[in-house]
């Protein structure tokens, strides 16, 4: 396993996402060389407040992902509310209004599956806290493409259902507490 080969990090989180991400993202140093693509389940009508919330607290650039923009290192991209976020073959980002997947738009599976297709073994996928099973199929796709699959420890996650479902779908994923996830990310910096 050569961490140096990782080209992008994809993160999915649902119930408990904000508290958990607040323990992870502000720890990343400004020199973090990879794009970080994040899907958080938020209600469709709520204008995505995540960017404003995290921009103040992170050393990395934080923005809402835009259609057809190139994902660059050192930047955290949040999927806009009510759109799926996908990665194209060349590492460009794409949005879509396709039907919700797992009752969610944006859906973690949509991001992970397309990102796995694009970055292949160069992707690290991380499934965090949540009360549904979105991200499970996506994480399996990450692992199948040769990427690194990481799941937040269900025993210590704010909500355990989503990490549990991800582990059931992807039993070989590494299980880590939030602190462990931070260390794995810092190794990439």
């Amino acid at each position, binding site marked *: 396993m050569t961490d140096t080969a990782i080209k992008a990090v994809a993160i999915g989180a649902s119930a408990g996402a904000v508290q958990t991400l607040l323990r992870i993202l502000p720890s990343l140093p400004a020199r973090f060389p990879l794009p970080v693509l994040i899907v958080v389940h938020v209600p469709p009508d709520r204008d995505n407040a995540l960017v404003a919330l995290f921009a103040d607290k992170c050393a990395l650039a934080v923005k809402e992902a835009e*259609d057809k923009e190139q994902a660059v290192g050192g930047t955290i991209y949040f999927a806009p509310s009510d759109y799926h976020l*996908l990665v194209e073959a060349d590492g460009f980002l794409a949005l879509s209004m396709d039907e919700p997947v797992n009752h969610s738009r944006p859906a973690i599976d949509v991001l992970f599956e397309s990102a796995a297709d694009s970055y292949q073994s160069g992707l690290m996928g991380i499934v965090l806290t949540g009360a549904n099973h979105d991200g499970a199929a996506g994480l399996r796709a990450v692992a199948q493409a040769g990427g690194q699959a990481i799941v937040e420890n269900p025993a210590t996650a704010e909500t355990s259902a989503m990490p549990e479902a991800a582990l059931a779908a992807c039993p070989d994923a590494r299980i880590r507490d939030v602190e462990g996830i931070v260390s794995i990310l810092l190794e990439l910096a």
Partner: protein
Amino acid sequence: MQGEVEDIELQLLLEALYQRYHYDFRHYARASIKRRALQARAQLGYSSISAMQEALLHDPSVVPRLLNYLTVQVSEMFRDPSYFRALREKVIPHLKTYPSLKVWVAGCSHGEELYSLSILFHEEGLGQRTIFYATDINPDALRAAEAGIYPAALIQKYTENHQKSGARSSLSDYYTADYGHAAFDKTLSRNVVFSDHSLVTDAVFAEMHLISCRNVLIYFDRDLQDRALGLFRDSLARRGFLGLGSKESLRFSKFAGAFEDFVREDKIYQKLER
């Protein structure tokens, strides 16, 4: 490996659809068209994308079924109410100075956006002097748009959206509810021309004062977006208006210079004079 084979199969499927039936999805944003082709394969019961491609080549009845997967029919009346409010407050005053108007709803899906605009134009007293062109490539969608019948369960959301757009009337003035459906008034579609038109393969057909094309370009790659935006520029009258979806913009387009921001936050542009 598996993924690579699927990519080749997908390319061949899109090529077959184009060469045999002239539906051109070859330059749609790949990640999302791939998802939808895989979904079609699973739901239509083919063992592989290649098997679906073979069926498609030999059996034209597969085309409409496949189209219903490859095109995304997700829409809502007065979706993003602030867009419609901006049209009402900022664009309509300009349009009122014309004796007759042409409005193009490109990629109209089941007509949700069209009826929204038609109601808005009626409320603003422009209903009588406006011709709407509602176009799409999906024949089932066009038929549904012409019918203008929606599940009653959606009406509450549509009503809320309509109110937020600065409504001057009640949405219920425009439909009759029956057996779980709301049928929109035929007066709203009297001045509408519904037609099959592709932003990928078809040409300019009239001179427009407003083009509303929302959440269609998002499915195209950059080159195809440019093709469509060039078509819009050439279709617009002098100082005509273009409205896009809330996550679409001209930012990455080579035609960015042909337009200027009119209402920036609502993605409404005005064609520049040349």
